[in-house]
């Protein structure tokens, strides 16, 4: 498809500035074919389902009318009737993003740039919270710190009297806290990818010139990481705008509603109001778009390259007396974000019925038995692992090229591509999955009802995550490194394979792991894309939460986390083994 459009013997575009001694035909076709194909596929993956969403959002007649009889813009103005929801959403998302990026940056710096003890272990531990869907995290925190029945508050009541409340997670601050803990992991991954590939000479300069360690970090390290930091912020902000689980569990009991809680309600029950939900979902893109614009403005025209042609080794700073403090910070974070909620979940999963009243608790392994007695659990597990592996592996290549296209090529319209790629993040998953369902069900290629539909869906919805993660590193890469390779006569493909991709490795690895995890725990889009024959493990978590109770949900979540953990360990072992063999 893309080839005949591209292969018309025009002047080479990207490589034009380089005085290349070889005829174009030897090098350019691969580049043009790949780039063109990726471009078309990316735009198509997003635009095709969005087309259906937009179409539905313009329906102002009966919500279930098909084909649509009345078109209008009425649904798009509806969001202004709920400015209180919008206000709450912005409050939670803005503060949550700031906190999440703070967590992410702090942890990435401590773990990757200082000689804190146990850095390798922390590296694994800080991403633990991300293994579970935010719903499960909110559930765990609700068990820990709901005002009347939370375990922490029950303990505190023994000390301070019957009605004392130490921590109240059912509050806007609580929602921000839980969201930030989860998204903090994403911020950490995005930022640490960039942190690992930093040339330490700039920091050394600063130290030589007399700045202290902290000052160096604040004045040199962090500003250099701006693309990754703001990229993480933009991504995390979009994710928070579109997430609903935490706000539902912790906000509904205090009647604190956000746009997505309302959206979720519009989509569930009868009658489902898809037009309004689609319009509201698309409207949310205004905010994500704005965040992206800010990002582009702050990145544009500045130089963040720290990966240059000169050889360097990222070196850790010797923090001396500060080491125990940094260790403490990491430990507290891991305790709060991972260990405590996990313990709460393990407890819940072993209860016959979920309660925090000690005298009522009765213990059982029945929940785990129930999970495994479900017919399709094993099949769903295999599907999930297969999909996660495929999505991550195809995804990083695909998203890496997109990232290269946006930040390294001179293809006209790459700025537009950046917005296109972020779109799936802006629209809440459940809304987007309707578009995916409608789009691919009419595609007469026999893909509906198969596992490939899920793969296409995952590749679409995780585009933003992958591109953001890889871009943080991409922007550090000096162009001259690639240009050098081209001047020396390497083809585009060789340059990509031998120069660009290896240099991007930390970002690509981070993206791979993130996509692998989010694919396994994916819920919102999967619900409508699974079929009786092809199931995945994610949706069961939400479904059992609503119908069967938290104890079963907890058991499912624990099993899911163990699978992610084991799978990642195995994959890392294999990857490390390969690397050793290469060396």
């Amino acid at each position, binding site marked *: 498809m893309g080839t005949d459009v591209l292969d018309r013997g025009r002047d080479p575009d990207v490589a034009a*500035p380089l005085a290349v001694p070889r005829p174009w035909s030897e090098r350019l076709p691969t580049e043009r074919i790949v780039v063109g194909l990726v471009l078309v596929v990316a735009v198509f993956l997003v635009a095709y389902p969005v087309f259906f969403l937009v179409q539905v959002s313009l329906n102002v007649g009966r919500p279930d009318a*098909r084909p649509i009889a009345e078109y209008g813009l009425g649904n798009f103005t509806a969001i202004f009737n709920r400015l209180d929801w919008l206000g709450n959403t912005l409050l939670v998302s803005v503060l949550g993003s700031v906190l999440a990026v703070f967590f992410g940056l702090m942890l990435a710096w401590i773990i990757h740039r200082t000689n804190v003890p146990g850095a390798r272990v922390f590296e694994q531990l800080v991403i633990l919270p991300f293994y579970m869907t935010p719903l499960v995290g909110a559930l765990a925190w609700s068990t820990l710190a709901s005002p009347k029945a939370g375990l922490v508050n029950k303990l505190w009541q023994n000390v301070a009297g019957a009605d004392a409340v130490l921590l109240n997670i059912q509050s806007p601050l609580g929602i921000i806290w839980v969201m930030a803990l989860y998204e903090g992991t994403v911020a950490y991954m995005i930022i640490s990818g960039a942190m690992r590939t930093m040339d330490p000479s700039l920091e050394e300069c600063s130290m030589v010139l007399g700045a202290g360690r902290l000052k160096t970090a604040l004045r040199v390290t962090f500003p250099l990481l701006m693309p990754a930091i703001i990229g993480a912020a933009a991504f995390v902000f979009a994710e928070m705008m579109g997430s609903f689980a935490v706000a539902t569990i912790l906000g*509904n009991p205090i009647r604190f509603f956000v746009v997505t809680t309302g959206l*979720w309600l519009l989509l569930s029950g*009868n009658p489902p109001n898809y037009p309004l939900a689609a319009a509201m979902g698309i409207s949310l893109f205004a905010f994500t778009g704005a965040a992206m614009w800010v990002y582009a403005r702050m990145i544009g025209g500045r130089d963040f390259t720290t990966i240059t042609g000169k050889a360097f080794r990222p070196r850790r700073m010797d923090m001396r007396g500060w080491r125990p403090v940094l260790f403490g910070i990491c430990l507290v974070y891991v305790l709060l974000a991972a260990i405590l909620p996990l313990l709460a979940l393990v407890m819940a999963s072993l209860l016959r*019925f979920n309660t925090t009243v000690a005298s009522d608790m009765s213990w059982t392994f029945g929940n785990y038995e129930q999970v495994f007695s479900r017919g399709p659990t094993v099949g769903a597990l295999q599907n999930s692992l297969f999909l996660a592996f495929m999505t991550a592996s195809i995804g990083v290549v695909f998203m890496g090229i997109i990232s290269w296209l946006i930040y390294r090529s001179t293809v006209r319209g790459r700025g537009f591509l950046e917005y296109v790629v972020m779109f799936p993040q802006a629209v809440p998953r459940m809304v987007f999955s309707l578009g995916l369902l409608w789009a691919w069900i009419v595609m007469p290629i026999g893909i*509906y009802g198969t596992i490939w539909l899920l793969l296409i869906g995952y590749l679409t919805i995780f585009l933003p995550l992958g591109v953001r993660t890889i871009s943080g590193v991409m922007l550090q890469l000096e162009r001259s490194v690639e240009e050098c390779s081209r001047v020396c006569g390497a083809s585009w493909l060789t340059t990509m394979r031998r120069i660009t991709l290896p240099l991007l490795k930390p970002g690509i690895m981070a993206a791979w792991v993130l996509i692998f995890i989010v694919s396994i725990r994916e819920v919102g889009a999967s619900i409508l894309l699974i079929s*009786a*024959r092809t199931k995945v493990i994610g949706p069961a978590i939400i479904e059992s939460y609503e119908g069967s109770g938290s104890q079963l949900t907890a058991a499912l979540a624990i099993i899911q986390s163990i699978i992610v953990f084991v799978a990642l360990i195995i994959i890392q072992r294999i990857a490390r083994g390969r690397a050793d063999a290469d060396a």
Partner: protein
Amino acid sequence: MSDRRVNDTTRRAFLRHLLLGGATLAAVPMLQACSGSGSTPAPTSAPAKPAESKPAESKPAAPAAQPATTQAPAAQAAPAQKAAPSSGVDLEAAKKEGKLVWYTPTPDEDIPRVLALFKAKYPWVDTSEYLRLQSGKLYAKIEPEMEQNVQSCDVLTLSEIALTADFQKKGYWMSYLSPETATFDAKWKSTPEGLWTAPQLTLAGIGWNPKNVTADEAPKGWEDLLNPKWKGQINVKDSASGLQYASYAMITEKYGAGYWEKFAAQQPIAMAGTAQQFEKIINGENKINALCQQSTFTLNKAKGAPVEMAFPQDGVPQISLQYGIVKNAPHPNVAKLFIDWLLSNEGGSQVFPETLGDPFTRPGAKSPQFVPPMSELNIWTPKDMDKYIAEQPAWRDTWNKLTGM
């Protein structure tokens, strides 16, 4: 410097890419129109069969199963034989189909138990494929599937009468008049008969934790919920719940809309799931569950949780679960056997009260555990079903406001 240079070629190349994408997009409605005519059921169902390796599997299974099935009618001569011949289900054809695909909102952990019971009776049926989703989401999936004629579903269960009615209006149910249908009261089946039947009910009452609320002070009727001492202590379900709507319609019919002004002043908390409503009662965060779903109550009570439930004498709201076969079902004969079995006294009693903990609407059926006999409950049904369905959308706004959304 050099990298800033953008030449026209790339601009044009990009525009052409976009045009290409645009053209593909434009083609979509056309594709939709073409496939909408219903000529492509094959793509998903046809390749599926070899992929399942079903022929290989079912052939050795069939002879082995044969004696078992021929023995079964002999052993339980009366019910089985009465059902099979008079229903006109072609057993041979059913055996050839050999499979059942069920779309249902039944809780995930219960479905295998129900299907195992069915398989015990018809061991040659492959019951491994089913899809469990909440009714609303199930409908979001099955409706476009029917429209595009790519559904793999045989039997569909829905818990929302409005969705069932919509499905009926669109002509998506297959007509099958099971011999068992005649036994059921007219309010539990479609007009005309044979499109769907509702053998299963979900009831609601008022629930509390006996450790936090004494038997004396516990509300017995719906008006007791208005007692100021429950302010901020009541949880209900959100406007996605059909059962909540039934409760609203019933109470409005009995006590007028004025009831809800007072109820709003109690500041009820709307939850998304029945399980969470119970958890908040059990751990003491809330005191009253004002939309206490009976099946969840039975489940919790059976596990020893401290819960009690009242079935108010002034009315018990219910929603029914409708079961039917969908048009163009890939395994229509097995689907008929499944429906016959579910509606039969033998099958229905095993499935609904015993396995799912829900009442079975067949006259004379026994109640689930911890529930008084059906004859003692004042079960409410809407007088005018069309009006009931028509007013639900407006109710959702009312209920959202009432619960502070």
